[in-house]
C-alpha cells in the first residue's frame, strides 16, 4: 500500500520552478494563499498556504481542534476565511458563496435527506439542472452501481446500514460531476470493519474518476493508506506536507513524529554535528544542520526501527537493555526496554521473540541505527 505512493511524481512536492518554467508544468488545481481564520481572539487558521494538483487525493490530518475542518469549510465557502485567497482552476473563489463554487461534499453525518428515497437523494442535484427524467434515472442508476448499491434506489436512508448510507452520500456528491470532492471525516461514524472496506472503495473510486479530493481525518492510518499527500496540521498551522512515506519516515517536526505512528522520544543535548548525548550515553546520528552545539534536543526513533538481531561488533549506538512490560498486539509484541535513564519501546515480531527468547526481566543488546534517528529541537 504505502509503496504505491512513491511512484507519484508530484511536481508540487518538488521545489518551485523558476518563473520561466511555469508553462512547462501543470498549474495547481487549488491554490490556497495566506488564509487566516479568526474567531474573536482565537486564531483557528494562521496564514495557511497550500497547493493541490489536479486529480490528487490530499488528506488534512491532525488532532481535533487543529483547524483541518475549518480549512475544508473555508475551501467550500461554508465558513469563509477572515482573509486570504483561494483559487480553484485559476478562478478566484475566495469571496464566492458555496453555491457558486464547484465542489461536492460528504459529511461524517452523511446528511442524507431522510424523507427522500435513495434514488431521489442521489438525483437531488440533477433535478434542478432541468435534465430529462429518463436521463436523470439513467445517471442515478449508473452512480448507484458505481458505489456498489445498484438495487438501493427505492429504499429510504433509514433502511440502509451506516456504510451503505455513506456510499449513497458519496454518489450524491459525485452526481453533478464536481471538479473537487470534499470529504469531512467520512468514515469516523462507521464500524472498524466497514471503515477498512470503505477506505479501499473510496480510494479506488477516486483513482478511477480522477477527481481532485480533499479528505479531513484525525485517523493517521486512514491518511497514510488513502492519501497521495498528507497535510499534517496542528493549532491552526501546517506542520508538514508530504507523501505518506515522507511524513512517516521523515517527519519534519516533533509534533508530526509524535502524531503519525508510534515514536520514542529521548531528551538530550546536541554535543557535535552528528552526536546527541542522553544522560550518560551518547548517540551517533546523521549530521544535522542549523543546530547549535549545547542546545536541548529530542532524539526520536520508531519502535520498529530498534534493531536486535545480528548486531555486528562495533555497531554504533549499541545499548544493553532490560525487558520490562510486554504488550501482545497480535502480529508483534510491543516491549518496554530500559537502560539506566533511557526508556524505550520496541516492536518485536513473534519470530524474534521466539528465536531470542525475549521475556520480562531478560537483558538484551539493541542498537539504534543512526540513519533512523531523528533530532528535533526541544
Amino acid at each position, binding site marked *: 500500500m504505502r509503496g504505491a505512493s512513491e511512484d507519484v511524481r508530484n511536481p508540487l512536492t518538488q521545489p518551485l520552478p523558476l518563473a520561466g518554467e511555469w508553462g512547462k508544468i501543470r498549474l495547481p488545481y487549488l491554490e490556497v494563499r*495566506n488564509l*487566516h481564520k479568526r474567531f474573536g481572539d482565537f486564531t483557528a487558521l*494562521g*496564514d495557511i498556504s497550500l497547493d493541490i494538483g489536479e486529480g490528487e487525493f490530499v488528506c488534512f490530518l491532525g488532532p481535533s481542534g487543529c483547524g483541518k475542518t475549518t480549512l475544508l469549510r473555508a475551501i*467550500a*465557502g*461554508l465558513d*469563509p*476565511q*477572515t*482573509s*486570504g485567497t483561494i483559487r480553484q482552476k485559476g478562478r478566484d473563489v*475566495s*469571496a*464566492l*458563496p*458555496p*453555491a*457558486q*463554487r464547484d*465542489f*461536492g*461534499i460528504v*459529511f461524517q*453525518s452523511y*446528511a442524507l*435527506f*431522510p*424523507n*427522500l428515497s435513495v434514488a431521489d437523494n442521489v438525483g*437531488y*442535484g440533477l*433535478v*434542478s*439542472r432541468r435534465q430529462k427524467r429518463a436521463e436523470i434515472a439513467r445517471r442515478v442508476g449508473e452512480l448507484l452501481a458505481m458505489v456498489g448499491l445498484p438495487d438501493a434506489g427505492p429504499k*429510504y*436512508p*433509514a*433502511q440502509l446500514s451506516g456504510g451503505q448510507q455513506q456510499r449513497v452520500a458519496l454518489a*450524491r*456528491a459525485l*452526481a*453533478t460531476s*464536481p471538479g473537487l470532492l470534499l470529504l469531512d471525516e467520512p468514515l469516523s461514524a462507521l464500524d472498524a470493519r466497514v471503515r477498512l472496506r470503505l477506505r479501499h472503495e473510496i480510494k479506488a473510486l477516486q483513482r478511477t474518476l480522477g477527481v481532485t479530493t480533499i479528505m479531513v481525518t484525525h485517523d493517521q492510518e486512514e491518511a497514510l493508506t488513502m492519501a497521495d499527500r498528507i497535510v499534517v496540521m496542528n493549532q491552526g498551522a501546517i506542520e508538514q506536507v508530504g507523501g505518506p512515506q515522507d511524513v512517516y519516515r521523515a517527519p519534519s517536526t516533533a509534533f508530526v513524529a509524535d502524531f503519525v505512528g508510534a515514536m520514542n522520544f529521548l531528551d538530550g543535548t546536541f554535543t557535535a554535528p552528528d552526536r546527541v548525548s542522553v544522560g550518560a550515553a551518547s548517540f551517533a546520528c546523521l549530521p544535522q544542520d542549523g543546530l547549535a552545539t549545547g542546545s536541548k534536543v529530542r532524539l526520536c526513533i520508531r519502535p520498529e526501527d530498534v534493531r536486535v538481531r545480528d548486531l555486528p561488533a562495533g555497531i554504533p549506538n549499541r545499548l544493553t537493555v532490560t525487558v520490562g512490560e510486554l504488550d501482545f498486539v497480535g502480529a508483534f509484541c510491543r516491549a518496554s526496554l530500559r537502560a539506566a535513564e533511557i526508556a524505550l519501546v520496541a516492536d518485536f515480531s513473534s519470530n524474534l521473540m521466539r528465536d531470542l527468547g525475549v521475556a520480562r526481566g531478560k537483558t538484551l543488546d539493541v542498537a539504534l541505527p543512526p540513519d533512523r534517528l531523528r533530532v528535533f529541537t526541544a
Partner: protein
Amino acid sequence: MSLSTPLTRVRASRDDLLMRAGVALLAVVLLLMVGLPLWSLLVKGFQDRDGNFVGLANYVSYFSTPALFNSALNSLHVAAVCTLIVVPIAFLYAYALTRAVLPLRWLFQGVALIPIFAPSLLPGLALIYLFGTQGFFKSWLGGGQIYGFEGIVIAQVFYCLPHAMMILVTALATADARLYEAADVLGASKLRVFFTVTLPGAKYGVISAALVVFTLVITDFGVAKVIGGNFNVLATDVYKQVIGQQNFSMGAVVGMVLLAPAALAFAVDRFVQRKQVALLTARAVPLVPRRKAGRDIFYTLFCTLVAAGILAILGMAVWSSFIKYWPYNLSLTWANYKFEAFDANGWDSYTNSLVMAAGAAIVGTALTFTGAWLTEKTRGFHLVRDLVRLLAFLPMAVPGLVLGLGYIFFFNAPANPLNFLYATMAILVINTVAHFYTVGHLTATTALKQIDPEFEAVSASLKVPIWRTFARVTAPICLPSILDVAVYLFVNAMTTVSSVIFLYSPDTKLASVAAVNIEEAGTTAAATALCVVIVVTSAAVKALHLLADRFVLGHLQAWRRR
C-alpha cells in the same frame, strides 16, 4: 503581513439575499404585531385622558389609590397560594404517571389534560353551580361563600393543573435507570434516593412549573371575572378601567403593573433553564417502572381523587348547561344552547371562533415555522436575527390583557395607516398569533435543531436553491411539529378571552367573549353551555390530531420506519 491583507467579504448568493429579505420582513411584521403595540401601551401610561404627557402622574395616582394597589397585592397573594397548591399535586400526579404502574394510565393522563381545552371561565361557572348562592353543596361552606379568594383558588387549581403536570411529566420522564440501579447497589434508602436522584433530576421542571402556574394565575382574567366577587385582582382591574370606566391611561398603568410579575417570572425561568444541562445522555437507559403493590395502590387512589375532582367540575358544567331552571326545575333541555335568546350574535359567535381559530392556526403556523427557519438558517445578518429572536420571545412574558390593550392603542390610533384593521376578524387573528407566538417559534426551532445542520450545505454544493430544500426536505421532516403548533394555536384561539376581549366588534364577537358577556348579563346556564361547546370543539380537534398523527402521518412518513 496578515494585518495588511484585505479581509474577505463573501458575496451574498441569491439564496442569501432572499433569506435576508425574509428575515427583515419578519422583523417588520413582528414589530407591528408585538413591539409597537407594547410601545404604545408604555407611552399611554405617561399620558392623561387627552393624550398630554403627564410623566409619572398616573403611576403616582395608581400607587396612592388603595383600591387599585390592593388588587396588586391580591393578585400576588392568590398566585402564590395557587402555586403552593398546584405544584405538589401536579408533581405527585406526574410522578404517578411516570414512576408508578397505574391501571388505565392513558385515561388518567387524558383526564388531567381536559382543563386545557376549556376557557378559564368554565371552572368558575361550575363552582357557582356547586357552591354558589344556589349551589348544590353550599351548605358545605357553612355560611362562607365561594365568591372571592377561595373560589378563585379552586378554579385556578383546576385550570393550571395540566400546565404544571405536562412540564413535570417531561421532567420526570427523562430519568436514567442506571442512576437508580447505582443508588440501589450502594444501599441508599428510598428517601435518600428521592432527594439525591429524583428531585435533582426534576428540579428545573419544578421551578419551571411553579413559574408557569404563578404567571397563569396572575394574568388570567376569566376565573376572577366569574367568581372573584368583590375580591379585585389586577386582571379584572384592567378590564374595569378600560371597558367600565374608559380610563385608558389608568388601564395602561395597571397593564404595566401586570406585566412586571409576568416578565419577572419569565426572566427567572429563562435564567434557570439556561443552567440546565442535558441530564439524559444518548447512552442513558430509560427507566421503566416495575410493579410494587403498596406504592401503586397509593398513587392509583391519589390519581383517582384528582381525576374525580377534574371530572366533577367538568361534569357539573356539562350537566348544568342542560338544566331548565337551576335549582328549582332540574329537568333537561337544549334551551340553554339556543344562544340567539341570550346574545345578539347567537351561534354566529361560535362560527366566528372557528374561523378565527382556523385562521390563527394556518397563519400562525406558517409564520412561526418559516420565521424560525429564516432565523436559524440565514447566514450573517446577526443584528436583525437577534431582533427577531427577541420579538419572538417577548409575547411569552406579556399577559394577553396587556397585549390586547396595546393593540387598542396602536391600531386604533387615527394616524396609523393600519387603522383599517381595527375591529376586523384580521386583527383578532393577528393578535392571537402574536399572543401565542413564542410557543410556536420555540417548537419550530427545536424541531429544526434536531435535523442535520448540513442539509443547506449539501444543497448549496448541489446548486439547489435553499427554498427548494425547505419545501422538499425540511418542512416535510418537521410535519409532526408543524401539526403540533397548528393544533396548539387552534385550541388557544378557541379558549382565549383575555386579549381579544378588547378587540372584537359586534360582527366578530368570539364564543369565549360571548360567554363572558352572557355571564355578565346574569345567564349562567347559557354561558356554561357556550363554554361546553368550546371544550367539546377543542377536545375534538385534539382527538383528530392524535388520530391523524397515528394513522395519516404514519402513512405519509413511511421513511421513518427502519
